[in-house]
């Protein structure tokens, strides 16, 4: 599914990720943990080829970071759902329109869009909010919209970058529950977090990063 082969990338002299060798299998749910600046987000960005390693290579869903041409990266991204800490929702669009966006990109027909969006709304418990705008929602609700947008296209892999970072414990717990439910249906999930308390009682693989280096996996 995802394989890092001795990859390194640095933004500056003291910031980046170094010599990471890691493999994530199909249907796995794993947490990427580490303090702020440890390289969690960089590693996730490398998975959807937003940044490319300066050394080594990554294989993601059959796409290799060295062999994939720049104009083919979008094909990989169609198979990945990304959840952002800052939600990245379009404020001038309703919840329904935000969730439907990836399906428009994939060229899905109107009827199928309706079915998929309704399914995602139900899974994230947002049916009553579908006609509201992001600014009318709480942080937890906005994050659920972001999750719904990520799952609506039935991706093979979901990358969640600190999805609970801005949320209170109850909302964070609810988000995690939803992600677990998605994972049970077979979707691979890699979630970056620095909230050890939230994941400590869960029996999932933990990949730990510190100052850009892999501490344990």
């Amino acid at each position, binding site marked *: 599914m995802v394989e890092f082969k001795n990859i390194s990338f640095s933004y500056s002299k003291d910031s980046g990720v170094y010599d990471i060798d890691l493999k994530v299998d199909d249907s796995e749910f794993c947490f990427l943990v580490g303090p702020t600046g440890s390289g969690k987000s960089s590693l996730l960005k490398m998975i959807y080829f937003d940044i490319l390693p300066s050394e080594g290579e990554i294989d993601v869903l059959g796409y290799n970071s060295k062999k994939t041409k720049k104009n083919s990266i*979008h094909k990989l991204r169609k198979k990945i759902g990304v959840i952002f800490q800052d939600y990245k929702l379009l404020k001038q669009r309703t919840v329904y329109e935000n969730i439907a966006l990836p399906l*428009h990109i994939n*060229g899905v027909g109107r009827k199928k869009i309706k079915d998929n969006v309704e399914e995602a709304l139900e899974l994230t418990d947002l049916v009553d909010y579908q006609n509201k705008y992001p600014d009318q929602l709480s942080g937890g609700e906005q994050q659920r919209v972001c999750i719904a947008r990520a799952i609506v296209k039935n991706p093979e892999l979901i990358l969640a970058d600190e999805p609970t970072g801005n949320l209170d414990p109850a909302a964070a717990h609810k988000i995690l529950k939803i992600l677990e439910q998605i994972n049970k249906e077979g979707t691979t999930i890699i979630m970056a977090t620095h909230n050890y308390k939230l994941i400590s009682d869960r029996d999932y693989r933990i990949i730990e990063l510190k100052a850009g280096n892999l501490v344990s996996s």
Partner: protein
Amino acid sequence: MIDQFAFLIAEGFKSFYRNKLASFLCVITIFINFSILGSLFVVGYNTNSLVDFFRSKYSFEIFLQNDVDQDVFTDFIDKLSKNNIIASTELIDKEKSAAIFKEEFGEDVVEMLGYNPLPLSIKVFINEESFEFDQVDLLIESINTYDFVDEIEYRGRYIDDIEDRINLAIFLFLVFVIAIIFLSYQIISNTVNLSMTNRRDFIDILKYNGASGFFIKIPFYIESILYSVFGSVFSFLFVKYFFISFNTYFGVNVKLDDYLWVWIIGFSIFIGLYSSNQSMKRNLYE
């Protein structure tokens, strides 16, 4: 596929609508630019009649006395034909002169006066390839020495002067056209830049969700087409009705090309697409 296309079209319109003030200013600027460009095009289209005027630089007309002897006259034409700088000659006899008079003034001079007072004349065409004013002046001077020559009508130097001025005007016209095209390019490009900056979140979300570069560009192409179409349609209507009114008011006949609208709208769309494409190249791959 149709749904996807409809989505992209709708996004283009939304973008146009959301940038209200910038879109309005862009349309107004295109309208002004293409109104000037369209008017210049109409002026250029009507310069064909000038070509005939300029051609007369390479000819002059010799008017002869009424009592000229036929042998002298034939001998004179022979001499002219042998001159290297003369390409050909055309005899305009009294009947032909009367016909020309009728065509130009609408009156039959013979019917009006009871006789034909118009002189016999010879139209002399000068060899354009070896044309030189000094030689023509010398030739005219020598022809003038003949007793049977009444008058020689030649406007060469006068036409040359006008031609110089018109060439300068054409040069300025081209500079002006280039400036207008460049201005239109800059305005559309900057408006699309602004639109892309305003919609950076939208572009990022499209990108992270697997949209290809072309998919992201389409709404902005549509937006620039809308600027071009609105601006140029208004400018076409303005140019058309301006010249119709001009013709009516001044009683002249400035002709409008049947395909003027195709030129104005097509050219505006071309500039719109090109400038938005350049703008997107800068914005999407930075």
